[in-house]
């Protein structure tokens, strides 16, 4: 801003002159003193970099980043995938329909035993199912509606859930029919906005949460204390996915609607309206999965065990199955009568479960 600079320089000279003449002259000149003080305050308040310089710096860095990325971008995914056989016909059907929620199903998670599922819905109910027999084993009523996040503990002994109450609570699963699960509830996480996702790390003792307040946090279940906090997002964090690696745990969080970290540990998938594949080692987007006939965006994604297939639950009530390497759609699955809000592949990869706003969950295999 040249004008201000000029103005500032002029005043600086004026100030300088006074200092050269010695401070004694200032005492005799109180109006001048006031003016000097005003200038000093103004100088202090003036940021050292102007907005324009910051903007140009940010943009030069961005261009440099793009250049660096482009240098290593020597091949496209579909080129590498040319030599692979295309997948044949894919037939997947609904094998189980879990009915029992009174309102939209918002989230689901599998138990490590490969057959149990916990699901949460808009009416505040969290249900634990044995999906194989379709029996309901436990039910909890949360004190809030829109329970957007739920997770099964690795041991299978507890579930965590949360939503509009801004908290993540852990409920130990008791098999005593007469016991009210809500009695043993433990409040673990506290955010300043709604809880969008939660998951246990390697054990029952720690939970990772993401929230509409733009942060993620790691909590100790036993004490309810925050162990680590993660900032950086400019919008509501809607999803996270965890993958233990050799050197510790890393997780990916996103402001798109869902994230799934490929078991391969090196790529992750983000969906905002379209499904996109992002390779973390190459640090760039490697594929977009879209089709002219798919108008609505995906709300939830997950990979099959080998990472070859990608299942996406969409807002147009369908599930699209993509060939990750070739970038083509392998199959479209109909069945839900409202949008698919959540989708997870089972721990051993034998099936996947989808939860929808039509109050049901479906197991596909």
């Amino acid at each position, binding site marked *: 801003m040249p004008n201000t600079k000029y103005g500032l320089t002029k005043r600086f000279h004026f100030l300088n002159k006074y200092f050269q003449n010695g401070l004694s002259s200032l005492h005799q000149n109180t109006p001048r003193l006031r003016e000097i003080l005003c200038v000093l305050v103004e100088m202090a308040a003036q*940021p050292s970099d102007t907005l324009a310089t*910051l903007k140009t710096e*940010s943009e030069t*860095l*961005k261009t440099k*980043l793009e250049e660096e990325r482009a240098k*290593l971008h020597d091949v*496209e995914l579909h080129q*590498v995938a040319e030599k*692979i056989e295309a997948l044949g016909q894919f037939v997947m059907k609904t*094998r189980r329909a879990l009915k029992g929620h009174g309102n939209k199903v918002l989230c689901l998670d599998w138990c*490590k*035993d490969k057959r149990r599922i916990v699901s949460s819905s808009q009416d505040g109910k969290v249900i634990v199912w*044995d999906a*194989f*027999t379709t029996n309901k*084993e436990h039910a909890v009523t949360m004190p*809030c509606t*829109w329970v957007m996040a739920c997770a099964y503990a*690795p041991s*299978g*002994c507890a579930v965590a859930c949360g939503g*509009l109450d801004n908290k993540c609570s852990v409920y130990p699963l*008791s*098999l005593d029919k007469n016991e009210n699960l809500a009695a043993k509830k433990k409040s673990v996480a506290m955010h300043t906005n*709604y809880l969008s996702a939660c998951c246990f790390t*390697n*054990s*029952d003792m*720690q939970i990772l949460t993401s929230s*509409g307040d733009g942060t993620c946090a790691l909590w*100790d279940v036993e004490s309810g204390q925050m*162990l680590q906090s993660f900032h950086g997002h*400019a*919008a*509501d964090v809607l999803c996270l996915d965890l993958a233990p690696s*050799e050197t510790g745990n890393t997780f990916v969080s996103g402001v798109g609607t869902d994230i799934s970290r490929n078991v391969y540990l090196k*790529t992750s998938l983000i969906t905002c309206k379209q499904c996109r594949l992002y*390779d973390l*080692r*190459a*640090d*760039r987007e490697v594929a977009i999965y879209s089709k002219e*006939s798919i108008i*609505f965006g995906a709300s939830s994604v997950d990979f*099959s*065990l*080998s*990472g*070859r297939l990608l299942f996406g639950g969409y*807002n*147009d009530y369908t599930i699209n199955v993509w060939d990750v*390497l070739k970038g083509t759609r392998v199959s479209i699955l*109909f069945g839900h009568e*409202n949008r698919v809000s959540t989708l997870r592949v089972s721990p*051993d*990869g*034998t099936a*996947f479960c989808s939860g929808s706003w039509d109050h049901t969950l479906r197991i596909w*295999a």
Partner: protein
Amino acid sequence: MTINTLSQDGVQRQQMSCLTKMERMVISMQDPDMGIKLRNQRLLITVIPHAMTGADIVEWLIKKCSISDEEALHIGQIFVKYGYIYPLKEPRNLILKVDDSPYRFQMPYYWMSTRWPASELDYAIYLAKKNIRKQGELIEYEKECYNALHKRINHTWDFVVMQAREQLRASKQRRKADRIVLKCQEQAYWLVNRPPPGTLDSIDHGPERRTMNTRVQLNAEFYKKEIEHNRISLARNRVKSSICLESYVKYCEQYQPHDPIMQGCLPSIPWITDDIMFWNMNCETVAVPTKLRVERWSFSFMELLNDPMGRKEFLTYLKKEFSAENLCFWQACEDVRHGETSKIPEKVDEVYKQFLTPGASRWVNIDSKTMEKTLEGLKRPHRFVLDDAQMHIYFLMKKDSYPRYLKSDLYKNLFARAIVPQETKKSVFPFMRRQRHSSPSPALATQAAEDDGKAKNSNSFKSNSGTASRR
């Protein structure tokens, strides 16, 4: 309870991308050359111009997007549900029928993107018109809405009635065909925006969320964050695309035989055949593992450690090599990292006594620098104090013991003994469903253990076969 009270603006923006795509398609449908052929459709005694049949729509979609019948019908339904196409025969039923039932394109004036959200005033005028036209024509829920609106916007009610009367008078001067069309258009619009109770609300979108699309203030603070973020990104190590993608392809190929959804599994996928043999044969305590399972241990060291049976086998091998303390140390460190915070000091102390004290019974061989650093950190034990030592031992095992284990007789013999399950015989009566056996809840297993007073590894659980089914 807090929700971000985002303006209607923000939510509309979320919807916009889908609506724009839909509208683009609708426009191409109406293209005079490439679009759907419109003709006059007969509706009872009137002839409606510029209409098409349900079958036309589906056919056009199949041709344009090269998709199946089912998918084309599904997409067509979406257009009807969102009010871009409306039916003439049964106007209250927003469904696409693949026959010669007539349909028409909705006027852009009534499109979702132009008039959303629907204003209360307009709805009041619409209901008033209906009421005036034929007394008692309002359906139950409409009557309720009408009364509620009357109470709510009572101050403008004269205006509402006046507008309604004006619009009715203007419409009387039109031809019958036009009148029917206008009536249908308006009705379709209101069916979408004020759905009757019990029907699907197509424009329901859940609680409002602050997305990246909301206007961010482009101030100094924002740019400073961007600069920081970009600097960090630049400093990251990047790998060539070809290397990354090739290794991803290799990974997919390696795991494909293990992916039940892609290749099926033996004996069978439990969800399809209702036979849980697959789970029984792969549980932790099985006597003889399957070949695929043992093969998987050779893919990576993490695979071996993640499988409890693999870990046990590896421990047996290490015992023979007199280096079992490495694995035990690693496991103890994992326990510290992921266990209860209150038990950390005592656990770390245990680890120190058993593994790190010079002359300890199970002393682990860590290099002096790491040992020094760890011992220093032990003065103030925290969750991650043993990380460096654990990493060192982990990589030691990975580089040294693990490859040797894979070449050892122990592993090879196990692999030879491992079974390939037989495919489940298809039942003689295919329509008869097998009994679906339930399994004890994992919560039960640990509860029983607690009752016995035994400390149980929280990661293990049993799943028994042959339990009487609970229905």
